[in-house]
Every structure is written in structure tokens, then in C-alpha cells.
């Protein structure tokens, strides 16, 4: 017995070690499928007034956590791991808690996660900064968008702030047809402008020609600077980041409230469509690596020669939340670039998502790149590149007998023939 005891102890110890190692693996497998959403609200009345919107998110299958924006306990990131996959900010008024500052939210976006922000006219400075980084320059605090001609009289509280607008034409196709046909009401919204350099930010809703941005507590347009109004006054924008993370900026929190979703088809459609777009459920494009070869040659050779005939292939698929299908793009182009594109050709769609083009390598040698750079509003961005060196002719690959030298060849032939006849005459004449 004195020999068995240490044996038992060692066995138990090993068992504990094994259990401790297995447990985290078992725990991790039952979870994150890219579905954890954090919703930040300014106060709990928002949770009640926007319950339909929150239920829409829940019904899509997401795991929703609602929290106050000022909360000390909730965090976006735990050292290196992101604890949530998507973030929805409703309000943006209060000062954020330490785990969810505006800087953290921007890092969250830059890490590839999606962001949906709806602000009120009294948006705080940190939210303003975040939206500025997303490309939307918000008007001064307290400004509202006023339109004395195009407003919804039933909802409006007197200041003509329940502005009517509709989906911008550049993003037609990104929203469902019924959303594009109906007017969308944006009560109590703050306008913003999108700088032309912010190419990632696309304005979805803009003011009508009679809309303008009014100062705080008045209906006068801003003085001392150009007032924002008309087409340049944006009420909602979609952002497609370079890392293909998506964000939405809405200038009006009230347009997502229960009463407006119930009463306006346009608002309901816009809420659902913009949410599904931002959460990468629609219009997500994935491209395979570029394949290239000499026509009917081996795939991806390490080197090409000038004036070769080369064909290039790429597979692009368009993914929804449920499945992926071949993308039917008509304007995908491939470029053959060495500092500048030497060739730019539109790819033809072969059917099952495979796009191809046939190209003659230009008469320049060097290191080239096949580049597919496809950026269209509403679709995720594709950037694929393959580097391929191109060599000049080897000395035996130049054409040998040139047509310009035919007279010289002819003269030599004539000399040979003449010599033979002369020799024959010399030998065989009497």
C-alpha cells in the first residue's frame, strides 16, 4: 500500500491537468459565429422607443447586448480579443465609458467589425470625432435640418424638422425596390457633409433642394459661413472601409423609432435594409486569387516574354448571409501595371463566377502586376494583385529573315545562279 499512494496522487494530478486543458477548447467551440452585437444607448427610454429596431436585430439571429453608453463595465476589447462582432450606437450624446470610448470604437471598425451609428442633434464631441473619422463632418451641436416645403405634417412638431427624403440614385440597387420608392421621414435630424476626399463614404439620404441646416434653437441658417443645404446636406451615409468593414451614419435617431417604423414604409424598409447591408448580409464580394497562363499553357508560370498572348482568370462570388452565388458583374476590369497601367481590359463573365480576359503582353519588359481593383458603391471592394516579371526576347527569338532585306537575298541568289551558268558554259561549250 505504501507504494500505491504516490501512484494514485500522480494519476489524479494528470487527470486534473488534462481536464484543465480540454475545458477551454470545449468551451470555445460552442460559440462565436460572428454574431455578438453590442448596442449602446444614452438612456433606457431609447431601449423602449426603439424596441422594434432592436427586435429586428434579434430576429436576424444576433446575440444582442444592450448597455448604457456611460457604463463602466462593458468593454469592446479584452487585451487582444474583441468581445463583440458588431456595434450599434443609438444616440451618441453621452460621454462614453472607459471600455467603449470613441477611439476604441474606431479601432473596432479598423479591425474589420461593422458599426451602425444613429445620432441626435445634441451629439457629443467624442461621437462627432468618430463620425469625422468615418467621413461625415457633422454640423455644430444643436443644429437641426429644416425644410419648410418637404416635411411630414403629421409627425412634425411645428419647426418643420420632420424632413422627407429618399434614397440617393448612386446607391440604387443596394436597397430593396420598395425602400427606394417610398419617402423616408427623418425627424429631428442633424445634417452632415461628406468631403469629396472621403471616397469610402457614400451619402444615402440627402436634403431636398429646400432643406437647410438650422442653428441651435432657431430656424435661421448658420451665419458667418456657408450654410449647408440641398444635395450637400446629408442625412444618412454608408461607409465601406478599405478592410471591407462597413458602417452607417444616420443623422436622425428618431427615424428608427417604433412609431416611425410602424407608420412609414420607407423608414421600415430603410432600417432593415441599412442594417442588413452594414452587417454584411448583402452585396459582399469575395474574389479568388488571379490565375494567369499563356493561352493553353501551364498555370501561373514564373515569367512571361514580351508579346506573349496571356489569359487571366478570376472567380468572384457575391455572398448573402445564407449563401454565396456567382457574381454577375459587367464592368470588372483587369489592369496590367508597371507604375502605370499598360493594359486595362474588361473581363467577360464565363458563367459560373469565373471572369476572363485575353491580353497581349506589351512590348516593354520589367516587373508587372495584374491588378483587379473593383470599387462600386454598395458592394464590398475587391483588390487582387499578382506580380509577374516580363523578359525581353532572347537573341534567337528575334525574327530572322526580314522582308526589308529581300533584295539582298535575291542578289546573292542571282550571283549563285549566274556563277553556275557561267561555269557550265565554260566547261561544256566548245
Amino acid at each position, binding site marked *: 500500500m505504501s507504494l500505491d499512494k504516490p501512484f494514485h496522487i500522480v494519476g489524479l494530478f494528470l487527470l486534473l491537468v488534462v481536464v484543465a486543458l480540454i475545458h477551454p477548447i470545449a468551451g470555445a467551440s460552442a460559440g462565436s459565429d460572428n454574431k455578438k452585437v453590442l448596442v449602446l444607448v444614452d438612456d433606457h427610454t431609447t431601449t423602449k422607443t426603439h424596441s422594434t429596431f432592436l427586435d429586428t436585430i434579434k430576429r436576424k439571429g444576433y446575440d444582442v447586448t444592450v448597455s448604457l453608453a456611460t457604463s463602466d463595465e462593458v468593454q469592446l476589447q479584452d487585451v487582444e480579443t474583441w468581445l463583440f462582432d458588431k456595434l450599434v450606437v443609438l444616440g451618441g450624446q453621452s460621454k462614453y465609458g472607459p471600455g467603449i470610448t470613441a477611439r476604441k470604437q474606431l479601432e473596432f471598425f479598423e479591425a474589420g467589425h461593422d458599426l451602425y451609428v444613429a445620432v441626435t442633434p445634441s451629439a457629443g464631441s467624442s461621437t462627432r470625432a468618430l463620425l469625422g473619422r468615418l467621413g461625415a463632418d457633422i454640423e455644430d451641436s444643436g443644429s437641426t435640418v429644416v425644410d419648410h416645403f418637404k416635411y411630414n405634417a403629421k409627425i412634425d412638431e411645428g419647426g418643420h424638422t420632420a424632413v422627407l427624403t429618399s434614397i440617393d440614385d448612386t446607391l440604387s440597387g443596394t436597397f430593396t425596390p420598395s425602400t427606394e420608392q417610398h419617402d423616408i421621414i427623418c425627424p429631428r435630424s442633424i445634417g452632415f457633409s461628406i468631403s469629396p476626399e472621403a471616397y469610402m463614404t457614400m451619402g444615402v439620404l440627402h436634403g431636398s433642394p429646400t432643406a437647410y441646416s438650422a442653428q441651435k434653437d432657431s430656424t435661421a441658417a448658420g451665419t458667418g459661413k456657408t450654410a449647408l443645404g440641398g444635395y450637400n446636406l446629408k442625412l444618412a451615409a454608408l461607409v465601406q472601409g478599405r478592410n471591407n468593414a462597413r458602417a452607417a451614419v444616420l443623422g436622425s435617431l428618431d427615424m428608427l423609432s417604433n412609431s416611425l417604423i410602424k407608420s412609414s414604409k420607407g423608414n421600415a424598409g430603410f432600417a432593415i435594409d441599412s442594417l442588413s447591408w452594414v452587417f454584411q448580409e448583402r452585396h459582399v464580394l469575395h474574389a479568388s486569387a488571379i490565375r494567369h497562363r499563356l493561352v493553353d499553357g501551364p498555370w501561373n508560370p514564373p515569367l512571361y516574354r514580351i508579346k506573349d498572348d496571356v489569359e487571366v482568370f478570376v472567380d468572384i462570388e457575391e455572398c448573402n448571409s445564407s449563401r454565396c452565388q456567382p457574381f454577375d458583374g459587367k464592368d470588372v476590369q483587369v489592369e496590367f501595371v508597371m507604375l502605370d497601367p499598360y493594359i486595362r481590359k474588361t473581363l467577360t463573365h464565363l458563367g459560373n463566377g469565373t471572369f476572363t480576359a485575353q491580353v497581349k503582353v506589351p512590348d516593354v519588359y520589367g516587373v508587372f502586376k495584374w491588378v483587379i481593383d473593383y470599387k462600386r458603391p454598395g458592394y464590398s471592394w475587391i483588390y487582387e494583385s499578382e506580380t509577374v516579371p516580363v523578359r525581353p526576347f532572347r537573341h534567337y527569338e528575334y525574327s*530572322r*529573315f*526580314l522582308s*526589308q*532585306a529581300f*533584295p*539582298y*537575298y535575291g*542578289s*546573292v541568289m*542571282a*550571283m*549563285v545562279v*549566274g*556563277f553556275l551558268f*557561267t*561555269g557550265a*558554259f*565554260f*566547261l561544256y*561549250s566548245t
Partner: protein
Amino acid sequence: MGQTSRPLGFPLQEIISTFATKYKAVPPRLRVLDIFACCALATAILQFIYSLIVGSFPFNAFLSGIFCCAGTAVLTICLRLQISEGQTSSKTPERAFVDYVLAMSTLFLAVWCYIG
């Protein structure tokens, strides 16, 4: 023979007529050689004019064409000199012809290698 003053300093008409009568005495063998040499020279001049118009781009082809024609002309004239009467060397006409053939073959070999 011409005493009266003429526009040219030499009697061109008489030179041509004397040459024509004397040339009738030349045997056919030598005449063939003469014709061949003249044709070769003409071909060389034609090639040169062509290169002046179009450019001498495949320069090796240009040089080999010109030298082939000039070379055949020269060698043919050498053969004619060696064969015609009044030569004091001890070479027989057969030996001269063999030399001609060998020289032309070497010329054609070099030209053919250089032309393309």
C-alpha cells in the same frame, strides 16, 4: 586623228567605233565572263541605291549582298585576265578556272553565313 577642234577633248566617236570593231575579235568565252562581271556590278549598284532609299537596316544583309556582287565581279575579271591571250604567267586556263571556282565557293560560303 582629229585636227579640227571638237567640244570634247578626246575623240569619243572614234573610241567607240574602234572598240566595237576590236571587240568582235574577242572569243565567246571571254564575252560571257564580261557580261557576268557587268551584271554583278550593276546588281551591286542597284542594291546600294536601294539601301540609300530604304536604309541599311539589316546591315549584315546589306554588306553581304554588296560584297557578294562586288566579289563575283572582281573574281570574274581576274579569271578573264588570266585566261585571255597575252598573259605571261605559267598558269594554264584549267588551273585558272579551278582557282575561280574555289574562290567563288569561299565567297558564297562567307556571304551565306553572314547574310542572316
